[in-house]
C-alpha cells in the first residue's frame, strides 16, 4: 500500500477526521499496514502495549478474560488504552474475518497527539463516545437481567 492509499484510508477514520493532508501524510508515513487472517490474535490481554490499530477492512473482536465484549469494524480504532495510558493491554484482540489494518507506534502517536490540536479533540470525542456506548450497553444488560 503506498502512502497516498494509506492517506485516503486514514482520512475516513473518525480518529483522524479533520486533520489536514500534511498531518495525515505524517500519520500515513509512520503507519504500518498489516494483514491478519481469520482467528489470528493481534495481541493478548496483559501484553505490553505498543501500537494503536485502525481497521481498514474486516472485523476485530475485543476480548476480556476470554469474553467477547465488542466487535469493531472498518474505520474504527483499538489499542488506545495501552497507548494513551501506558498500561499493559487491558483486552485482547482477535481477527473475526480477514483484517487489513494500519498500526501506529505508541511514541509516534503520542508525539502527534501533543503537537496536533485536531487530533487531540478527535481522541477526546472518540473516547467520550466509547464511554457512552459502553455505559449504554451496561444499562441495557442490567435492564435485561431485571425481572419483568
Amino acid at each position, binding site marked *: 500500500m503506498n502512502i497516498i492509499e494509506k492517506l*485516503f484510508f486514514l482520512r475516513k477514520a473518525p480518529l483522524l477526521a479533520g486533520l489536514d493532508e500534511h498531518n495525515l501524510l505524517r500519520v500515513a508515513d509512520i503507519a504500518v499496514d498489516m494483514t491478519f487472517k481469520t482467528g489470528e490474535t493481534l495481541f493478548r490481554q496483559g501484553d505490553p502495549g505498543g501500537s494503536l490499530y485502525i481497521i481498514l477492512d474486516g472485523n476485530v473482536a475485543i476480548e476480556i478474560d476470554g469474553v467477547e465484549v465488542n466487535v469493531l469494524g472498518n474505520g474504527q480504532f483499538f489499542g488506545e488504552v495501552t497507548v494513551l*495510558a501506558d498500561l499493559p493491554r487491558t483486552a485482547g484482540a482477535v481477527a473475526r474475518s480477514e483484517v487489513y489494518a494500519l498500526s501506529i507506534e505508541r511514541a509516534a502517536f503520542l508525539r502527534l497527539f501533543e503537537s496536533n490540536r485536531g487530533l487531540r479533540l478527535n481522541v477526546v470525542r472518540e*473516547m467520550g463516545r466509547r464511554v457512552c456506548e459502553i455505559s449504554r450497553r*451496561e*444499562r441495557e444488560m442490567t435492564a435485561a437481567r431485571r425481572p419483568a
Partner: protein
Amino acid sequence: MRTIIETPGFDGGIFGPSEVKVKDRGNLVAIILSAPRLVTDSADRSHVSGFFQVRPGEWRRIGVFGSYIGLVVGNIIVQYTFNDATFVSFYPADHLPYLFIVSSLVTAVMSSLYGSVSERLPARRLSWAMPALFCVSTLLCRLLLATHLPGSIFFIYIFLFGFNGLMVIIAWNFVRNGFDTRQVKRLMPLLGAIAGAGAILGGVTVRIAAGLIGTENLLIISAIVLAAAAGCALAAGPLVAVQPVSSKSEETFWKQAGAGFGLIRRNRLMLLTTGMLISAVAVRVLVDYQFKATLKSEFNRVEMASFLGNYFAIAFGLEFIFQLFLTARFMKRFGLTSALASRAAVISILAVTLLVVPAFWGVVAIKLTEGLLDRSLFQSGLSLVFAPLPARRGNLIRLTQEGIIQPLVVAAASLLLIFFSPVVSVTRLSWLVLGAAAVGILLALRTNRHYLAELSRAVQGHLFDYSQDFKIGQLMNEKTISCLAAQLRSGERDEILFTLHLIDETGAASLRTEVELLLEHGEAQVRMAAADALVGVAGKEAGRTLRARLEEEEDPRVIARVLRCLGRIEDDATVEAAYRLLEHGDVEVMSEALLLLFRLGGLDGIIVSAEKLATLKAGGPRERMALAGIIGRLKVENFDRTLLDLLRDPSPEVQRSVLEAARSLPSPRILAEVCRFLESERLSDIAEEVLIAAGADGVASLMGYLGGQQPSAETICHAARVFGNTPRAESLPLAEEWLESDVGAVRYEALKTLRSFRRAGIETAPERRDALLRREMILGLSLKLALSPEDSLLRRELKIRLDLCTERILLILGLRHDPDRIDSAGAGITGGDPHLRANALEYLDNLLNAPLESFFLALLEDIPEKECLESARECLGTDKTGLNDLRTLAAKDRWLSLLVADALSGQERILLDRATLLTRLAIFRDMSLACLWHLASRCRERRFAAGDLVFPAGAAQEAGYVILDGTVIVESVTGAAERLGRGEGVGIDTLFACDTGDRSARCDAGALCLEIGRREVEEMIWRHASAARAVVNGLLENFIAASKRELLLRKRSLDGGAR
C-alpha cells in the same frame, strides 16, 4: 459571596495530620519550605539501600539476578580450579599455549552454537535452559573421567572451559537486560560484588570439599550449583523486558557474525570497544602464561594446589571488597574513561616494575591486579558502553567479539608465546604485556566522546522527526495518480473535495479532463475546489474553461472563486467581466473583481478600483473589513495610510482584519502602531504574528516601542517571541535583562529567545547563564522538597511548576551545549519510556560537570528526599542561608503568590472552590491549576426548579453539570433511574459524545448546578496538550471501570445461560 463547597482537601491537604495551622496565608510557601517534614522517616529508613545506591523496589530484582549470577560465577570457580589442578599436574608448562589455542577454537564453536540458539530462544528462556543443559553435561563429564580414557582430561578441560565462557556471556547478558542504563551504572558494581561473593564461596567450597570427596567429585557439586542457577533464572524471567524474537530466522552464526562485524565497523564506539577488548585479552593470555609457567617452576603438585586455593580466596576476597565499596564510587567520581583505562595503566606500571625487579611475587601481583581490575572496573565499564545500544544489536556485537575476535586474539597471543617462550624468559614477556596495555590506555582515552554521541543517538533515534515536511508532489507516480482518479470518480463529495485539494497541490496534469468535468458538479463547493485544481493542473490554459464557467455560474461563492483563479493565472480576457461584476451585490465577488481590475485592467482599471476603494472606506464595518482584506492582498505600500486609519477603527473586527492585512504589508508606519496591540488582550497574538512576519523591521519597531514603555509581563513575553524569531545583536541586551525578571513566564520566554540567538551565532554572557542556571536549580530543588504525600491542588501545582522549572533548566543547558541534543535528552526524560529516560539521564550525567550534575540529576531522578535535601544544602551552603534563599526565591514567584495568597480571598476563593470541585470528576482530575482556573471562571451557576428538564434524551449536548445543591434524577429509555446528589456530575460522561443518547435528566425538587460548557472544555483541549492528556486520562479511567462492570454483567449472563 457564598462558598459553594467545603474544601478540607486544600487546607488540610499539605499539612494533613500535622499540627501546623496556616495563620498567614500569604506566607504559605515559606511555611511549606521550612516544614520539619523535609527529612522524613522513610528517607533514612535504610542505610543499606543508601550505601549501595539501591532505590525502593529494586531489592527483589537485585536478589533474584544477584543469586543467578553468583551461582553461575561460583560454578565457574569450582570448575576452573578442578581444571587447573587436574591439567597442570598432568601436563608440562609448554603445553599451555596449545591448550589456549584449542580452548579458543572451542569457544568460537560454542559461540556459533549460542548464536543460532539465541536467535530462536528469548534471553529469558536461554538463561535457564543453558545452566540446565550444562548441569547434565557436567554429570556426563564426571562419568567420562571415571573411564580413565586417554585424553579424557584434555577433553574435559576444553569442554568445561568453552561451556563456562558461554555461560558468562549468557548470564551477564541476561542480568544486563534486567536493568536500564541508569540502573546498570548504579547497580552493576553491586551485582559484580555478589558475583565475587559467589566466587569466594566457590573457592571455599573447593577447599573444603576437595579433601572430603576428592577433586573429581567437585563436578557433582558443580552440577548442583548449575541446577540452582536454572531455578533462579526461572524466577527472574518475568522481570526481564520481552525482546522480540524471530522464530523463522534462517541466519547462520556466520551471517550473524557478519552483521556483528558490520555494526562494529560502522560504529566508532564499538570499534574502540573491540580494540580495548583485543588489548585486554592479549594481556590476559600473556599474564596467565607468565603466572602458570612460574607456578610450574616454583611448586610441586601438592604445593601448587595449596597455593591456588589461597590465591583464589584472596583474589576474590579483594575483588568482593573492591566491587562492594569502591567500584561504583570510582565510576561515579572518575567516569567511564578512567574505569576502562585504569586496568591497563596499573598493569603497565607493574610490568615495568617486573622488568626492573624480576621476582615471583611480581608475577603474582600482575595476575592478581589483572583479574581484580578486569572484573571490577573494566567489565563494568564495558557493560555501561553497551547499555545505550538496542539489545539485539548489542548481543550481535558481543557475540562477534566474544565468539570470533576473542578466540582469534587468544590464538594469536598463544602463537606469539610458542614463538617467544623458548627464547625469552617469563619476565621478559612483560615487554609484550606493556605494549598491549599501552594500546588499551590510548583507546580508552578516546571512548568518552563517542559514548556521549551514542547516548545522544539512542535518545534521538526514538523520537519521531516532525521537521520532515512532505512534498506531496514528490509522492506522485502512476499508481498514486490512478488512485486519485478513482477517488474523483467515487461520487462521494468529501472524497472528491479532498482529492481535488491534493491535485491542486500536486499539479497532476494527466487528471485535467476529470477535473474539468467536475466544474459542472451539482455541489457549489466541488465546483469551487475544481476551479482551484484546474489552475493547479492546467495553469494559464485553464482561462478559457474558467471564463465559460463564469458566464454560466449563479452561485456568488463560485463566481468569486473563479475570479480569484483567473486572477492567479493573470487572464487578461476576464477584465470585461470584472468591470461588470464590480457592481455585484456580494462583497466577496466585488472584492475579487476589484483586485482583478487593479492588477490586470491597466490605468482605467486602477482608477475605477481606487474609486471603489474610497466607497468601501465610507461604508459599514463589513465593507471596511473587505477593504482591509483587499489592501492586504494588493500589497501596495502607498495604501499603508489607509490601513493606519483603519487600525484606529472603533470596531475590533475591523482592527483584526487590518492586522491580518498588515502581515503582508509591513510598512514601518504600520508596525509602530501594531506594537501598541501587544497590550491588547484579544489582538496581542495576531499583533505578535505581524511583527514576526516583518522580520528585522518588526524587531526595530518593537525596540523603539519598548524604549519608551514600562511593558507588562505579557507584552514582554510577546516581545521575546518576536526577538527569538528574528535574532538580532541589538535586541540581545534586552533579552538578557528579562532573564533577571521576577516573573517565571518572562524568564522562560527570554531563555527560549536566547537559545534562538545562540543558534544564530549571537552568544550571551556565560556568567549570566551560570547565575540563572544556579537560581533555577535552587528553585527546582525547593519545589521538589516541598512535595508532600497528601494529594492537593497545591501539590499538583508544585509538580507542574517543577516540570516547567526542569524545562527552563534544559533551555539554559541548551545555551551552553548543543541545543538539539539537549532537546532530545529533554524529550527522552519526559517521553514516558523508562529505557529512553535512563539513556537521556545517562547522557546528561556524562555531559554536565560535577556540581551541575549533582543538583540537576537530583531534580530529575526519583531519588530519596534526603539525598535531594543534601544536594540543596550543598548547593546553597549552610542550612540557614539555604532556607532563606529558598523562601526568597519562592516568594518572588508570581504564580505561587497567586496560588497561595490571592487565590484565597474574595472572588478567587470561589474560583478555587469551583476548581477543587471539578477535580473530583475524573476527566478534570489531572488538569493543571491554570486550566482548571480558566475553566472555573467560565462555568456558571444555574438553578433548576422542581420538574425542570436538565437535558432531554437524544438531544445535542452543549453542557454538563455538577450538582452544588439538591438532587437530579437521570433516567434512561430502558427504565433505569439514578438519583444524583451534591458534588456529582450530570451528563459529564456524555459531554464529548455531543449527544445525550438514551438518557435524560430532570430535577425533582429543585437544584443548583454548576454548568460546564462543552465548547469551553474543547477550547481548552484545543489550546493545551496537557488539558487534553488530563481529559483523556479521566475518560480512560471511566472507560476501564465501565468495561469491568460490563464484563461482570456478561459473565453473569453467560453463567445464567449455562444454568
